[in-house]
């Protein structure tokens, strides 16, 4: 069993490695990544440009590979849930309930520094500031 975790701005590679030492920690997934290597489990959290097509996830599923999507990639899990793509986390739950949109979940391309805050984090903080 080998696992690959695609994570970038959401969480540092160091922290991700602490959480799952046996997994390979990879930068945000881009188009074609699921074809370029093999794994028994894919964990998709951050997505780069160009983003993978949903079909790429389906192809991996057809190869018998487990796919978990969450965080900024939660919409993949929502869209492909019926096809066995698993979703976890608050963002997945919110996306599944239809509360979140693409432009809230994705990282702005213009922002790539460590101090950046995503639109969804901004939204979350503002909700908290409003006491909601």
């Amino acid at each position, binding site marked *: *069993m080998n*696992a690959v*975790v695609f*994570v970038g701005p*959401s*969480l540092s590679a160091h922290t*991700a490695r602490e*959480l*799952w030492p046996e*997994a390979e920690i990879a930068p945000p997934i881009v188009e074609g990544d699921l074809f370029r290597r093999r794994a028994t*489990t894919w*964990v998709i*959290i*951050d*997505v780069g*440009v*160009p*983003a*993978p*097509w*949903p079909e790429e996830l*389906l*192809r991996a*599923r*057809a190869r*018998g590979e*487990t796919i*978990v*999507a*969450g*965080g*900024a990639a939660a919409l993949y899990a929502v*869209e492909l849930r019926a*096809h*066995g793509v*698993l979703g*976890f*986390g*608050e*963002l*997945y739950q919110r996306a599944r309930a239809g509360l979140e949109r*693409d*432009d*809230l979940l994705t990282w*702005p*391309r*213009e922002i790539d520094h460590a101090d950046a*805050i*995503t*639109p*969804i*984090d*901004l*939204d*979350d*903080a*503002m909700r*908290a*500031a*409003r006491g909601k």
Partner: protein
Amino acid sequence: MIEAHLEMRPAARSLEKALDASPADRAALEAKIRERPRLTARDAALVITRAREIAPSHAVPHASTQSLDRLAHRVRRRTRYRSAPMR
């Protein structure tokens, strides 16, 4: 920080309207935002932890290539690139 998002993201503009923050409140608000543990970080940690728990035992049924092709076609039509918004 907020202004940068407002320029880029329509959703963030609607957030500003909902919040109705005056410019004078911005500094305090930004400080609160920076102090707050980020949802994306919390969520990423949770997803990795849950994936690690289920990975060894999660049995995945294989789909046939033919059914997969039909499936992929339907998904492409239905999702309309929704999962690839940055393209």
